[in-house]
């Protein structure tokens, strides 16, 4: 029993953060609004760090990491609002493609040449344009062809529907597909934690400086208590995300996998959404303009809170998974 992230996990996260602080600034995210799907330079850097192929065995050129090794780095990709399918490629697609024996595509991922997006069947598919492959998860898994684009709340995360035909079925077990969907929810939850932390930090900085009625806005009790509540949600979601990662890796102490992932995604979605709304409220009119960076992160938050199952969906999963209230 030691729930602290390992040194490897902390180092991978720190390296990711350092890279993204330099290469994925707010300006980069904003630029992706105008030209979605053009994060190629950023993706090459992530591939150099090894993130897309982090779960690929070392023998196949990957880092050979576990899900819980990768998750702290994914929190950082959320904090930076990386405008590319890193969760979809690294966490959702890789284990499924390995199971399907698609070593060609896995190799392309390791090389940084393939950007694989993914979505549950029936939902709008993100990162089109931009992704090179589209993975759709229903009962089974297919590589599908994107159809028309639809306008997105988060312009840096473009959306498309699927074309009616051209899909290619992958040969995988139903359990592999279900596990991939759970990893989608988990990775999204990790990014939401990072997004929440980012917006909270921006708001603390803003309210500590902004003067109103002769004092910093952040010195008013109402603002303090709003921000304490925002922190509370994020701080209690974060361990739930790490526990769900351990459950994915089969840690027996992490309990039922579905319950753990449902808890992580529900708490992270609600917490990050609460941070976004609080941040906008505490910024006043400033929070309400698209020239200020806050909106970039708020819109990513709302997009991800809706992806891979909403908080309400995951509460229903939890109710299912927890079963009878046996002692």
């Amino acid at each position, binding site marked *: 029993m030691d729930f602290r992230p390992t040194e490897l996990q902390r180092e991978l996260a720190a390296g990711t953060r350092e890279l993204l602080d330099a290469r994925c600034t707010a300006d980069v995210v904003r630029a992706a609004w105008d030209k979605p799907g053009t994060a190629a330079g950023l993706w090459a850097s992530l591939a150099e760090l090894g993130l897309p192929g982090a779960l690929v065995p070392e023998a196949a050129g990957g880092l050979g990491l576990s899900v819980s090794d990768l998750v702290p780095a994914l929190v950082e990709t959320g904090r930076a609002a990386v405008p590319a399918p890193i969760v979809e490629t690294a966490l959702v697609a890789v284990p499924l493609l390995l199971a399907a024996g698609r070593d060609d595509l896995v190799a392309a991922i390791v090389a940084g040449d393939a950007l694989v997006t993914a979505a549950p069947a029936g939902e*709008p598919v993100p990162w089109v344009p931009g992704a090179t492959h589209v993975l759709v998860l229903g009962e089974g898994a297919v590589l599908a062809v994107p159809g028309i684009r639809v306008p*997105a*709340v988060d312009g840096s995360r473009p959306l498309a529907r699927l074309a009616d035909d051209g899909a290619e079925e992958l040969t995988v077990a139903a359990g592999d597909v279900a596990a991939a969907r759970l990893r989608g929810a988990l990775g999204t939850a990790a990014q939401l934690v990072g997004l929440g932390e980012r917006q909270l930090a921006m708001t603390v900085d803003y309210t500590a400086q902004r003067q*109103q009625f002769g004092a910093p806005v952040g010195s008013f009790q109402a603002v303090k208590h709003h921000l304490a509540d925002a922190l509370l949600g994020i701080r209690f979601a974060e361990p739930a995300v790490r526990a769900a990662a351990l459950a994915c890796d089969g840690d027996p102490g992490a309990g039922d996998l579905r319950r753990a992932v449902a808890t992580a995604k529900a708490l992270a979605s609600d917490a990050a959404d609460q941070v976004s709304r609080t941040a906008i*409220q505490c910024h006043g*009119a400033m929070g309400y*303009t698209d020239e200020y960076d806050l909106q970039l992160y708020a819109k990513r938050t*709302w997009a991800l809170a*809706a992806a891979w199952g*909403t908080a309400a969906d995951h509460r229903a999963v939890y109710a299912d998974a927890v079963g009878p209230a046996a002692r």
Partner: protein
Amino acid sequence: MDLTWTPEQEEFRARAREWLAANVPDRPLPSGDTREGFAAHLDWERRLFDARWSVVSWPERYGGRDASLWEWLLFEEEYYRAGAPQRVTQNGIFLLAPTIFEFGTPEQQDALLPRMAAAQDLWCQGWSEPGAGSDLAGLSSRANRVDGGWRLSGQKTWTTRGAFCTHLFGLFRSDPESVRHKGLTYFLVPLDADGVTVRGFGRLDGDEGFAEVFLDDVFVPDSAVLGGVGKGWSVAMATTGSERGLTLRSPGRFLESTRRLRELAEAQGAGGRLREEVVEASMRADAYQLFTLSQVSDLVAGAKAGAESSLNKIWWSELDVLTHRTALALRGAEAAVDEPWSRGFQFSLAGPIYAGTNEIQRTIVAERVLGLPRVGR
């Protein structure tokens, strides 16, 4: 005590409903916060004016119908029920006009109100400055006395649809020695005056709906002063009162949005908590309607609207957020798509911020309605 409309009121409602049914555009207009959409909305405003529906509660000589508060409420209810366009003239008609009626000279009223009703003059508000948001008393724009008038300088920001308007109203510091809310004067400024520069910029929901207005030694005559030199603070307070109060947010808007929410929930066969939240939003809309009818009954009987209007503002703005959040939760993964509900959600987040944040409103309620001590923050 009763809640039943008179036959005359029902007759007024029927006339409004009939005209709206025949005239409301079949398809929603493009957003009034874009240049193209604003033009389409101006056409609509002029149709409303031609049929005498643009300012129903104003005197007939200014283009209105001398409608009572009750009739105004009925008109608003029908207007939202009909899905009629957003009123891009609202800053003038609902915020500035009540102030002109209360503080303007007869000459100002005759000159300004008919052009406002006809959407010939288009007014934006200049409350916020880079250094002053909800704290109006922190304004730094200046007005210097000159022969025959004033010279205005400074910068206003967050002026809604300022890039498409013709006039601005706002406060300027006319006594350079003054601090806080003393020494302010309320000015009416044509945006085509020499020295005015307007720059539009974008909003959270993606429209170019805001503007910054730069004033560089702009001359205005004495007739541009509303309500007296140095009286700007109390004049402005009257206006923000009406912004917060009933006049801007009629219950019809929320009865209609919660009805659409129920429609959405039924279409999606929603169960569980979402169904509960749909009911909660609907009940709150019903309560807002009843609270308003109770308030208007008092007003019609001669009571004054006071700090209690802060209760309205908190209630409707948080109801609006609840309604849209619930709609997005119902839409699930589709909530990531940019469409009316998701835009409406982002727009709803402005409600608890503008016209005095809800934190300020709660403090007003606690101090002026409940009588809690003002010491401390």
